[in-house]
């Protein structure tokens, strides 16, 4: 059976109403592969599944719809992989209810790479986003792929960080492969396609329904070697990913936060429960890949600053600060402050999370 036939038959099987992933798994393991299911008679099918389902499968032997679908996916450069396919990652097979079909856009080889999932809150602090981006870019420097869910907040920051660091990144969607959700990430979606891959177990036009997101989390942890939770509240969706990771035997890493910080409650709890406390990207790289990496996160960049610049820079921390406060504290003239801030921005010492607000750049 060629790859094309296999894919078409699997699309056919998925397309039959009332046949869920569990039934598919049963059928595929019993009949060895999709062609076995297709060729099976009603009586044979009824031995594995309920008579109702067997009837449906037996009555639906037309492949035209599946063939058309196959053409459409091919036209849009969407690859379809399944267990046993050359791009289907080995590690994903080891998880419970691994997907029988995965739609992939971009470079499918990235899915098989060494990869760490970076996940966290959809409403993070600037510190959280910056840190996620920093970790992702450090991982990128070690040829480690960053895997995340293309959600708002930490997920987006992690994807961006990996791309900016010149590395690969994989986004696992909870909606159809061609659906950009949230819509504001359209640009990022295109960037990821160029610098990695977009993966989904849902085909064309599947809407982002709430129930699908916890399910996609099992794929995020499933295709990664370990999961880093950057920032999570007490009841965060990223904790679901961490749970899956534990179930699947993946290492869980968590960034510590201040104890009164609501955004760090989830991660601190993870650490209490035994997740590895990470304070430096090299911690992960060493723990997972055994590579020792010198990485000083307290690099002193102030060396080349003049007195005036130092003065301004010293009033900018990891929490966003408004320009009026910088002027008031530094007692520097407005026009001078603005030109120094411009210079610091230009040289990459600071960043502007929103107009008028400044923070220190981590990396």
């Amino acid at each position, binding site marked *: 059976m060629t790859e094309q036939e296999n894919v078409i038959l699997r699309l056919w099987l998925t397309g039959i109403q009332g046949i869920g992933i569990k039934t598919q798994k049963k059928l595929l393991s019993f009949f060895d592969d999709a062609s076995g299911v297709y060729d099976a008679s009603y009586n044979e099918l009824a031995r594995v599944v309920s008579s109702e389902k067997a009837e449906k499968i037996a009555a639906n032997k037309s492949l035209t719809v599946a063939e058309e679908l196959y053409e459409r996916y091919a036209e849009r450069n969407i690859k379809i992989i399944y267990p046993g396919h050359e791009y289907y990652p080995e590690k994903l097979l080891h998880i419970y209810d691994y997907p029988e079909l995965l739609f992939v856009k971009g470079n499918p080889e990235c899915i098989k790479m060494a990869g760490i999932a970076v996940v966290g809150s959809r409403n993070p602090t600037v510190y959280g986003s910056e840190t996620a981006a920093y970790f992702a870019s450090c991982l990128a420097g070690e040829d480690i792929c960053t895997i995340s869910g293309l959600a708002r*907040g930490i997920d987006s920051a992690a994807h961006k960080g990996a791309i900016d660091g010149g590395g690969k990144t994989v986004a696992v969607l909870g909606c159809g492969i061609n659906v950009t959700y949230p819509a504001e990430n359209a640009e990022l979606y295109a960037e990821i396609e160029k610098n990695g891959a977009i993966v989904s177990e849902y085909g064309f036009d599947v809407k982002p329904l709430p129930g699908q997101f916890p399910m996609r989390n099992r794929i995020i942890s499933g295709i990664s070697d370990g999961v880093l939770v950057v920032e999570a509240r007490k009841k965060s969706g990223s904790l679901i990913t961490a749970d899956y990771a534990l179930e699947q035997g993946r290492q869980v890493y968590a960034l510590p936060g201040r104890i009164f910080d609501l955004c760090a409650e989830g991660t601190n709890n993870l650490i209490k429960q035994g997740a590895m406390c990470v304070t430096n990207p090299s911690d992960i790289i060493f723990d997972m890949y055994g590579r020792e990496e010198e990485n000083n996160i307290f690099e002193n960049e102030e060396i080349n600053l003049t007195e005036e610049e130092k003065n301004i820079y010293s009033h900018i921390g990891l929490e966003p600060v408004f320009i009026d406060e910088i002027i008031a504290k530094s007692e520097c003239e407005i026009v001078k402050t603005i030109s120094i801030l411009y210079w610091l921005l230009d040289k990459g010492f600071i960043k502007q999370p*929103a107009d008028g*607000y400044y923070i220190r750049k981590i990396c």
Partner: protein
Amino acid sequence: MYSCVTGGTVTGIDGAVVNVEADVSDGLPMFVMVGYLSSSVREAGERVRTALKNSGYHMPPKRVTINISPANIRKDGTGFDLPIAVAILLCMGITPHINMDRLMIAGEMGLDGIIKPVPGILSMIHGGKLQGCDTCIVPYENVNEASLVKDMRVIGVKSLAQAVKYIQGTENIQPVFFDENKFRKETVYSGQLDFADVKGQEVLKRGMEIAVSGFHNVLMRGAAGAGKSMIAKRLPTIMPSLTFGESVELTKIYSISGMTGDSDVLVTKRPFRSPHHTITAKGLTGGGMYPKPGEVSLAHKGILFLDELPEFNKNVIEVLRQPMEDRRVLISRVNAAYVFPSDFMLVAAMNPCPCGFYPDRRCTCTEIMRKKYQAKISGPLMDRIDICIDVKAVEYENLFHDRQEECSEKIRERVERARAMQAKRYEAEGILFNSQLEGAMVRKYISLGEQEEALIKKHFIERGMSARGLNRILKLSRTIADSFGSTKIKREHIMEALFFKNAGMQDMGVAASD
């Protein structure tokens, strides 16, 4: 018998001279008025007849015809009562036929013959002056306003009888002449408001100073209670006082709208107009069957403050574009086109997002909500806004510190200096401000050094700026240099311009400040 007197009407903000002709002849007793009249003018007939009777003049049972010419101008307003009455009396031979060519008459009458003030008197008398009139009879209450016209003998009358006596020469009324000193002493802005009232907000104050210096339109973006309205209200205090010419032009507008004060007729304060966001397009630009000035004209030479800009109806904001570009409003009607000046500085304020907290963590808006909210203001309007300032509410300790804030007068001095530099530079172009530079003028008047050119070029390439955006930065840099009294644009001036540039919020997630 035929007679003719000169009256006036207003089109747009300009006065037009009209001839009020009367003819009293034998025939069936009738009172006919012709000459493209609005209904308020048509009603003058009844008022005049009764007022004549009640003033002691007997109207013979004859055919009275009134024609107001030229017939192609639509006549509106109540200022025709008195000229019609005088014209009829002339016909009846009650007043002698003196030379009425250079006498202009305007006024509304009650049924008892008492003369009441009319709106737009300044425009009418000004129009009369241009047509060669040298004397005018106006309602007593309008004398002050009418005397703003130079070289005009202004006769204030209280009743029809008094007016008739004046024309007969039996009562001498002292004419009032233009006297600049009478008005001049009030032209300095003196108000309760002062920039020193605003605590902290250094960047906002600085941005406003630049805006006022170069007459740049401003958008303030910040949470509720950050002081956006407070500073906007104080903007007139840092603007130079109105020149006499500007005052007269403004007085015309306010007079037509019936908004002049009773005691001080001349508008001496820079206008600050703050229409509510439920305003209609016509309310903003002016309009109506007989067009009246809208808020943009009432804000002429001053500030038009639009608080909660995204809450305004989209169509309403869009109509602002043309008045902002042309600095005047053109309203076309079947019979005429009306022009109202609208050289205002737009100061707009908006929340950063629907809930008003962005970039604070309390903000519950999604990025899409925020973008939708900001997209309510169209690109073409944003293109006309040079300065965009983000405002953050002042911290408690800064609110009650006792550091002396700079007062309006000091800021105004700098503004005046910057404006003087611009006025001198653009003498030949007929414009006053950097913000008014257009097209080729930008490159003609704004030159950069090598370093400055490199800075702009770098920014242009890296940030994907548009050509229009580049021009805005150049104009703004010029104003900033002017505000420092510098003839050369330095790098820090450009940096400041880039800081105050009108950019969309950056999409870097939500900033934290719990």
